[in-house]
């Protein structure tokens, strides 16, 4: 236990000494403060702590719509773009050097010559890397928690689910970084390999999502997508859904990969805001952009699509991936001569 603490402390010191760590923390801080800078008053809302003001008769201080708006921008922008994307990308870059640095000639000898098992060293370094994302997201979520509490008077502790969930999504990718780092002792290879895996995983999940939507969700609801016009068309009554062709292929591709996208989307399941009373909860950014609310059919189709995978499937499927990759990386680290 003491060894684990010593290695974690060293990981923290390493991060602390790197400029990139502070750049990431500063960015998290800025993004968090950017969110916190949205304010509501009696005549509308402002951004940049009152620097730019927009008059709006609905988005006013204390209005249910303001609460909905504030939560919506968090879900649509900050969860999707920052927690599920930007923050993880920065963390991948910032932590890619952990294993190459550990295994460098002259450094690894000192560590391995101590009465500590190699598995302990390997796992402690892995968790040390995860600590980076943990701290980064903790800072961000704390700011968001305070901002939501002050702006719309909702003190929502479920926001803190974002910390373990984002760390979990990061760990799906960091285990690949660890494997490549141990194999090639190269920071650049670790970054490139991890980003490639992320892209592959994202593509496979998107393919599976589209295939499920076109071959299961829409036919079940009695619709099909006209590929020429990109419009939904109602199927003639009594039409039986066709046997899916693309979906089985998509599922084979998606299943063994980490569920990074679905993992980030779990945030929406875990972070639950109380009903604002505005009646706008079903409206998301896409609806706003389209200038109209979704029909109940579309809402129900989206719901089915978003809930096609259970939380257990996403978590256990990704945990299996992490375990396998970590086992390979750890085995290589443990068996290698340095």
């Amino acid at each position: 236990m003491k060894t684990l603490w010593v290695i974690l402390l060293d990981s923290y010191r390493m991060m602390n000494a790197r400029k990139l760590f502070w750049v990431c923390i500063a960015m998290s801080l800025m993004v968090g403060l950017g969110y916190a800078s949205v304010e509501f008053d009696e005549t509308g809302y402002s951004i940049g702590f009152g620097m730019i003001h927009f008059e709006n008769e609905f988005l006013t201080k204390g209005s249910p719509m303001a609460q909905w708006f504030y939560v919506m921008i968090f879900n649509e922008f900050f969860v999707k773009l920052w927690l599920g994307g930007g923050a993880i990308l920065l963390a991948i870059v910032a932590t890619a050097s952990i294993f190459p640095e550990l295994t460098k000639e002259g450094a690894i000898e000192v560590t391995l010559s101590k009465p500590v098992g190699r598995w302990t060293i390997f796992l402690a370094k892995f968790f040390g890397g995860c600590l980076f994302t943990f701290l980064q997201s903790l800072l961000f979520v704390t700011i968001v928690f305070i901002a939501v509490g002050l702006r719309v008077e909702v003190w929502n502790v479920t926001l803190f689910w974002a910390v373990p969930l984002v760390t979990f999504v990061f760990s799906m990718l960091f285990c690949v970084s660890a494997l490549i780092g141990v194999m090639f002792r190269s920071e650049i290879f670790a970054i490139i390999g991890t980003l490639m895996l992320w892209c592959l995983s994202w593509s496979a999940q998107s393919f599976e999502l589209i295939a499920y939507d076109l071959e299961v969700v829409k036919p079940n609801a009695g619709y099909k997508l006209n590929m020429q016009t990109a419009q939904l068309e109602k199927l003639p009554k009594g039409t039986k859904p066709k046997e899916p062709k693309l979906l089985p292929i998509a599922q084979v591709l998606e299943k063994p990969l980490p569920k990074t996208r679905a993992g980030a989307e779990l945030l929406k399941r875990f972070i639950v805001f109380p009903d604002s009373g505005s009646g706008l909860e079903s409206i998301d950014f896409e609806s706003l952009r389209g200038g109209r609310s979704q029909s109940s059919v579309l809402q129900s189709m989206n719901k089915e699509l978003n809930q096609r995978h259970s939380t257990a499937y996403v978590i256990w499927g990704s945990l299996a991936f992490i375990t396998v990759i970590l086992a390979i990386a750890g085995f290589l680290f443990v068996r290698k001569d340095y």
Partner: protein
Amino acid sequence: MSSPYVIDISNVRKTYSGGVEALRGVSLKVPRGEIFGLLGPNGAGKSTLIKILMTIIRASSCQGVMLGQPVGHKATLAKVGYLPEHVRFPEYLTGRQVIHYSAGLAGVPTRYAKKKTEELLEFVGMKTWAKKPMKTFSKGMKQRIGLAQALVNDPDIVFLDEPTDGVDPKGRKEMREALRELASEGRTVFVNSHLLGELEMICDSAAVMTQGEIVLQGSLSELIQSDGYTLSVEGDLSVDLQTKLERMQVKHENGELTVENKHLAQQLIDTLRASEVNILSMYKNKQSLEDMFLDAVEGMGPGAYQGESKKENKPNKEVVNKEVVS
């Protein structure tokens, strides 16, 4: 009663994938409480042997014990210190933090580690630099911190791989003094080096390794054995005397007479005095560690063993595998 040897290993082999034989059946005994030097040309397998003892490399085969436990026993490493060659500490740590980190990994209790760290900083002369990050240190300063971190767990045996490599003469002298002090405390110091002059000044015993084999091992006094006596005399020797000396198997060159042992030396002195020859000086010939080393590795190429076909013809020397550890 504990063994007189802290390391007693035999048949240590390491063959890398690709067939390179780094170690070919090394057997070694290191006496307790001594400074032991492992000599050898670059690529001889010295570092590989140390790394096997430190569990950094897995041996293809290894029999024997270190500190009474089989080689590879992790817990034993709590009583072992190690300063690797080309050591690289995290640049973001200060000298003090490096020693603390090492103590933490070695399982040294925190309070004791703090006290010990301060003592060691004093011991290696780095007290005033303790708060500075490693990136600001010279090679010699890094080696000092390296030595300190190797000692933080009060080891029974300390392995130092090329400890004076890149260190200035003053630093080397201080390092030698430090090693002597460690030995005087009853610790065994295992020094791996190709700087023979350095080792000659501090080692109690040594072994010579080349192409993955120990070719010579023993106490330094026996390894650097007497090679006869030389007398220098005044003036020319008469023809009569020269004939006598030839019969006595005395070598005569440039006014210096050399005999193989002390009995012949006594006879030579008597003969010279009887012939009224002035003796200017007399000294015992001593083989240097370098001579011994060169003699031991004569005919061997550098690097690891490459197979019989590539090995140069090695003369059948008497010293090969001669065990003279008493």
